């Protein structure tokens, strides 16, 4: 034993002593239950993520195990899913996914290059429009186009013939166009992040060794291969799992897509969970194949090009004709993805009697008046606003715990399992989540256990939470991993308990990312469609269901007015949230993350 004899030991002053007594004994006793919060967290994750999905997917193989048939093991669900119209829908999804992935990646690459590597005018605008496209729900983009092109739609009312365009758009082409517009931001983000880290030395090396600009571009494309493959895989997975376009444009065009057949299998009578689960497996397998293709394409090569010695790349000057052409292409993309749908929705909401066969269609604000006056039209928006606020708050809190666990120095196994789970959940279509919730919480076993959540708002919120959590946790992972552990430890050793220390030292640092995550989740939940469509409480439709119902009943004016009001409402919430942060947050919180 190393004993260091004190030369000037004095009696311990009470103020400087370690507290003892009853409180000390209680603290020491409670410290034995250190694993309890982690167990509680995992119980939540299992209840909202693992159980619903696992049980739903299990029924594809063993209907009897879950009281859905007589067979303990069967592949009938897969056999039914892979023949006739269902096979057709699966093949359509595959083709649409592949075409969309290639188109969106090519366009996303072009946008990233133009914004980051050229001096194209209004670079901030193009970058911002990518985020606007990312946030716009696919069914709203599709519905905007439909309002313009449908028979007796806006173009017909305005006397502009739309027959040819309608014929072309109502089918695979239109579906691919809308999904490509939705996929471009994903490709843009994946490729632009990689492009930012790629210094100019690789291009310079080509040029000083006799290569031309074209050769340098080829090298850059090769070095960006991981990002390009990521973009292809992400856009493919997003496209095949999309429900918004499948339920609107594709359905109206009688172009079957796998996600909509899954919806039909659980929404029509008789409900066929084994077939729905088999389609769920097929969708997951297709997303898995995309990831495998990405992994195989990159295997055995090194793309570590980002280092401390990288020099920032220089922007390429575009000659005026080239700049004009590039601006034209970007403007076309924004018009297709945002402009046309916005114009379609806005104009349709301002036309009287759109969708009816009435001969006179005047411009009016009466649709907005109707939405604001009628409880049936206004109710869904207020209901969704409430559910979105609850969901965003819960998701941000649990997402923060998940991100903390993923970046923790201890509990590596727990973190690895959670990471894998969240990654898998990101690849799962929302419609599979919704079907899993219907299935699991409607099981007789749930009833026996006293869990009566089916057809309740609680179940809807839990499903929203489950679909939003994987992405929110990913969004928070970056900022959480940047926070030094010592900030919280310093709070603890200087007198604060674990929770108080986190709230006083780490929360201020993460306030902006947490608020961003809340806002993103709020907006996504407010306008969410697949989970809402399958799980809404009877007579209490959320706004997305309200919009699609109004449109299905040919109340185009009321439906589009709801759409416009919902989007404006989301924008107001975003502005209010940031405004309150600026007004109420302490000055030190607001200074963080600001540029000089």
């Amino acid at each position, binding site marked *: 034993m190393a004993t*260091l004899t004190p*030369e000037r030991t*004095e009696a311990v002053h009470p103020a400087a002593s370690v507290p003892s007594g009853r409180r000390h004994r209680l603290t020491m006793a409670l410290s034995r239950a250190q694993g309890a919060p982690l167990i509680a967290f995992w119980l939540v994750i299992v209840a909202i993520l693992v159980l619903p999905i696992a049980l739903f997917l299990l029924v594809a193989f063993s209907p009897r195990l879950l009281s859905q048939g007589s067979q303990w093991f069967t592949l009938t669900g897969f056999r039914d899913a892979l023949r006739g119209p269902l096979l057709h829908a699966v093949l359509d999804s595959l083709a649409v996914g592949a075409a969309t992935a290639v188109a969106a990646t090519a366009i996303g690459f072009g946008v990233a290059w133009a914004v980051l590597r050229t001096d194209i005018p209004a670079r901030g605008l193009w970058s911002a429009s990518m985020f606007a496209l990312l946030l716009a729900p696919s069914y709203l983009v599709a519905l905007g186009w439909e309002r313009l092109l449908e028979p007796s739609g806006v173009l017909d009312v305005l006397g502009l013939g739309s027959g040819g365009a309608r014929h072309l758009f109502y089918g695979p082409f239109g579906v691919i166009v809308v999904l490509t517009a939705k996929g471009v931001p994903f490709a843009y983000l994946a490729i632009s992040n990689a492009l930012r880290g790629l210094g100019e030395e690789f291009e310079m090396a080509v040029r000083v060794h006799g290569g031309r600009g074209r050769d340098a571009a080829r090298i850059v494309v090769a070095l960006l291969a991981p990002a390009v493959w990521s973009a292809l895989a992400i856009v493919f997975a997003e496209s095949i799992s999309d429900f918004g376009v499948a339920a609107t444009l594709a359905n109206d065009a009688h172009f079957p897509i796998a996600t909509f057949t899954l919806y039909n299998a659980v929404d029509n009578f008789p409900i066929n969970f084994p077939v729905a689960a088999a389609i769920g497996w097929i969708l997951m397998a297709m997303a898995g194949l995309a990831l495998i293709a990405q992994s195989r394409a990159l295997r055995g090569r090194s793309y570590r090009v980002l280092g401390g010695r990288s020099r920032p790349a220089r922007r390429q000057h575009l000659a005026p004709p080239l700049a004009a052409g590039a601006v034209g292409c970007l403007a076309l993309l924004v018009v297709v993805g945002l402009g046309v749908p916005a114009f379609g929705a806005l104009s349709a909401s301002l036309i009287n009697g759109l969708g009816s066969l009435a001969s006179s269609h005047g411009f009016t604000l009466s649709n907005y008046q109707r939405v604001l006056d009628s409880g049936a039209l206004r109710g869904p928006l207020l209901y969704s606003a409430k559910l979105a606020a609850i969901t965003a708050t819960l998701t941000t809190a649990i997402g923060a715990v998940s991100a903390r666990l993923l970046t923790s120095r201890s509990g590596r196994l727990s973190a690895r399992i959670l990471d894998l789970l969240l990654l898998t959940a990101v690849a799962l279509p929302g419609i599979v989540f919704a079907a899993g919730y219907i299935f699991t919480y409607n099981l007789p076993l749930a009833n026996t256990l006293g869990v009566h959540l089916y057809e309740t708002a609680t179940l809807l919120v839990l499903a929203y939470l489950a679909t939003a959590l994987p992405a929110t946790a990913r969004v928070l992972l970056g900022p959480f991993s940047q926070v030094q552990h010592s900030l919280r430890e310093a709070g603890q050793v200087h007198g604060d308990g674990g929770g108080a220390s986190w709230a006083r030292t780490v929360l201020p640092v993460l306030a902006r990312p947490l608020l961003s995550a809340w806002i993103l989740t709020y907006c996504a939940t407010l306008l969410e469609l697949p989970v809402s469509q399958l799980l809404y409480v009877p007579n209490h439709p959320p706004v997305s269901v309200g919009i699609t119902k109004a449109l299905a009943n040919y109340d185009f004016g009321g439906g589009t007015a709801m759409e416009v009001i919902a989007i404006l409402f989301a924008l107001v919430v975003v502005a209010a949230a940031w405004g309150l942060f600026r007004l109420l947050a302490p000055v030190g919180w607001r200074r963080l993350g600001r540029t000089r």
Partner: protein
Amino acid sequence: MTTQTTQAAPGHEVVVQGVDKRYGKTPALAGVDATIGAGRFVVLLGPSGSGKSTLARCLAGVERIDGGAIHMAGTLVGDGRRHLPPDRRNLAMVFQDYALWPHLSVAGNVSYALRRRKLPGAEVERRVADALERVGLGALKDRYPHELSGGEQQRVSLARAVVGRPGLLIFDEPLSNLDADLRERLRVEIATLTRETGATAVYITHDQSEAFALADEIIVLDRGSIVQAGAPEDIYHRPATPFVARFTGIAGELAGVVARADGDQVGVDVAGVRLSARAGDALAAGDRVRLLIRPAATSIHDPSSAPLGGLAGTVIDVAYRGRGYDHVVETAAGSLAAVFSPRRWDRSGTVSVAVDPAGCSAYRTEGPHPADSRVLDLTAVTLSA
């Protein structure tokens, strides 16, 4: 900086009994025992991975121990099952990365540590102003951490640590991110300020010169265990193992054979010359040993006028050090680095190196002699005078 003294609050006595700590399957601390007297300034010295930071973090309570027990001021604060959180241990810590909260001003960072004292506002302000004056930052209290230099940030961290007058102050390599000049100035500030507070101090470093300059006592750790503990003079003059000798600075290792053993003194034949040394192990005549020689024990001479018993060698490198020159000398038994002389001896010149027995320890050879295997360590490790 004012000279106003802070009222001394006597520190914790810290008792560490058989402490084990593992990260997964990797042991970080294995059966560590130590008793640190109240008010003592103890330095934990060791290379990366020796467990010194882990031990300090276990004392702070930011890590839980897996076995053994830690007592502070006579109270159990942790064993394998129970754990008193850091905020209940009445301590403070200065972190290697400063760990200043970026959303709080300098004054906000320092006053944070007074929360547990529940003092009136005016008293908090007075104490914060006093602590900041003591570290020379009174004029910068409204700045934010990113508006300060590295040295200023570490001073804020120091003020934050002492302002609450804790019973135990822990320093986790606080100077490692600073330049040499600033390190020396801050080292003096840490030494004086800590001793004024009367707190027990545990200071972690891998820099032996910092350890010798600061410590009342040094604990040397290697691979999760304590290899020697004692006063700096003991560690320097009587290193318990070759590891401690090497880690606290040697000029080189020479292979030899014990010619005579007399208690803790031995005569060792090295390349035909007999050198006197302290016996690090129990040695007998005929034992093969390695001599570990402190840089300060060497001196360089002209062979024609050298004292008897010098080692003949060739100068292979010279480095100017301001107050004189450090030489690397190749002898028949091995290489000696940091051999000091006030004058320059030219490269390739033949010299004689005299060795003072007070700075020379002999340890029984395990494995091949460095000279036998032709392993030459030319790293010049010096200990600041």
